[in-house]
């Protein structure tokens, strides 16, 4: 038996938001290095090495990883279960039964709000079983939450 991949991709704006989120710390680091270079011009080799690492990190985490993540991330909600695929180097496919769902949370960070995105976290009684659907368009997220709470309310069993 195998499980086909979940059908729905995250919002089209997701790679952009992830790239901006990743760019901020790297730009801060680059700024720090510029200040260091302005104050102290000895040890040219060390400056060059640090700059190379920063440029490499910037390219990987701002250009490559967001696109890679966008191609991996998928989510789907069935009548009985919620199913996601996440990650880039380490990829995870996670499925949880909706009858055992305890809470459905929505989280919007500052960047998410700027671009109208939302992240939905579905928790069960196990701390290892929380399912996260990240970077959804706000209206999609609202529909997901409504659907999940609807289905979860039907089952009345103790969710452990």
């Amino acid at each position: 038996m195998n499980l086909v991949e979940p059908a729905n991709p995250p919002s089209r704006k997701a790679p952009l938001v992830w790239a901006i989120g990743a760019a901020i710390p790297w730009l801060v680091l680059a700024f720090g290095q510029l200040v260091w270079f302005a104050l102290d011009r000895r040890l040219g080799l060390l400056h060059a090495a640090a700059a190379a690492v920063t440029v490499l990190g910037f390219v990987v985490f701002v250009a490559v990883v967001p696109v890679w993540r966008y191609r991996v991330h998928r989510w789907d909600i069935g009548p009985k279960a919620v199913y996601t695929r996440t990650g880039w180097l380490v990829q995870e496919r996670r499925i949880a039964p909706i009858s055992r769902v305890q809470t459905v949370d929505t989280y919007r960070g500052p960047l998410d709000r700027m671009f109208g995105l939302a992240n939905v976290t579905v928790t069960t009684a196990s701390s290892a079983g929380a399912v996260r659907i990240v970077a959804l368009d706000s209206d999609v997220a609202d529909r997901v939450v409504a659907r999940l709470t609807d289905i979860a309310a039907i089952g009345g069993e103790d969710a452990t």
Partner: protein
Amino acid sequence: MTVEVGQAWQRLSPRMLVVHPVHELLRQIPVLIGSLVLGSATGNPMWALFGLALIVGYGLARWFTTSYRIGPDEVQLRTGVLQRKVLSVPRNRIRSVSTDARLLHRLLGLTVLRVSTGQEAKGDTAFALDAVQAEQVPRLRAILLADSLAPAEEDANEPGRELARWQPSWLRYSPLSFTGLAMILAAVGLAYQAGVGAALQDSRLARSGLDAAERFGVFASLAVVVVTVLVVSVVLSVLRSLVTYGNLVLLRRDFAGNDGVLHLEHGLLRVREHTFDMRRLRGGTLRSPLLVRLFGGARLDAVMTGVDGAGEASLLLPPCPRATAEAVLSELIARPDAVTGPLRAHGAAATRRRWTRALALPAVLLIAMVVWYSWTPVWLWPIWVVLTVCCALLAVDRSRALGHRVDAEWLVARAGSLDRRRDCIAAAGIIGWTVRQTLLQRRAGVATLIAATAAGVKSYRVIDVPAELAWTIAGSASPWVADSDWARTQ
């Protein structure tokens, strides 16, 4: 003093007026030392007395400010000298009741009673009555568990069926643990913190010790130190094991109409009792660390909701003969084949991954030693050979350990060498599945399957199963996976 159910707030045993100040004194030793130092430095001994009075006063105040009440729907505990806090626990959420009596408590006939709910409670949010009189415990236990377990009063006095009882022969597994070594290290660390190290630095004792070492020769004195530490650590380990687990008894009480409870009692000096609700049992873990396994031993942990899976809380049997641990687990989960039955191995790719991991360190060392050949001392080569052989043995043992077994009721997974574990998890308790693949796992065609439960350590792994098998395993244990819209038979 009687136990009542009602709206009245009750105080803990008045004998705690003795215990609290003593415990506070022990806990505040640094403050006490500080005030002594301040007293001698300022030439005013009143400082020391003031510190003492403050600590004792705080200890007394703790008794006056703590009260509890067992209401019809919930139990409440009010605590806090400066910050008041009320902790309420719904009675139908109580999953297990455990008791614990340290030495001072026992001398005064007191017992600490802890209530555990399905929620994980740590530190501040744990509901503990510290302490009530020991005679009240059976009645309190019956009242507290009444809503969730419904044991009738006469049932609580029924002796129950004995599953296991501590044998002196179990002591043979305890010298092999590191508890003795850890205790020595802790004692040395404490001594240094207290300033013994600085005092020793240029004392006559240290100098005469160094002189003796020079006369003996460095290697001889080093050997003496190592042997002494080993002997002391073995003695301490055996003693600790005897004091903690001597007189351990594991009972099962069945009540008409439900699954009953497990009752565990152990400790010679500090007596601990746990009562587990059998309905919360989701399986068990047989753990056999390498050194214990060499002598044919294993320890047993319960996998239960509302009981922390990692520490002492879930322990059912300390290291004991493997057959005993297996028999008890078979009895608990009523499925002997899950406990002892053969497992399905994970195949060549998983074995290859064990080998590459184990041999990575020797390989890196070898390259380094070849590159810096002229700087490598000769004695490093035999050490490298020994290390490589050990790593190879580890790889063999780890790949032999890997295996799983699954049906509609139980998931069994075994892994590890230094700390081998066989997890038996009830399929009904699994509330989520994760298939995780790193880049290297994707290339090797294997995956780590993680079963999420609300019990024990929350996540149980089946390591490096062939990727095409991962969802089959999940599907055979959980029908909601097999019946989902995404399932396809290949």
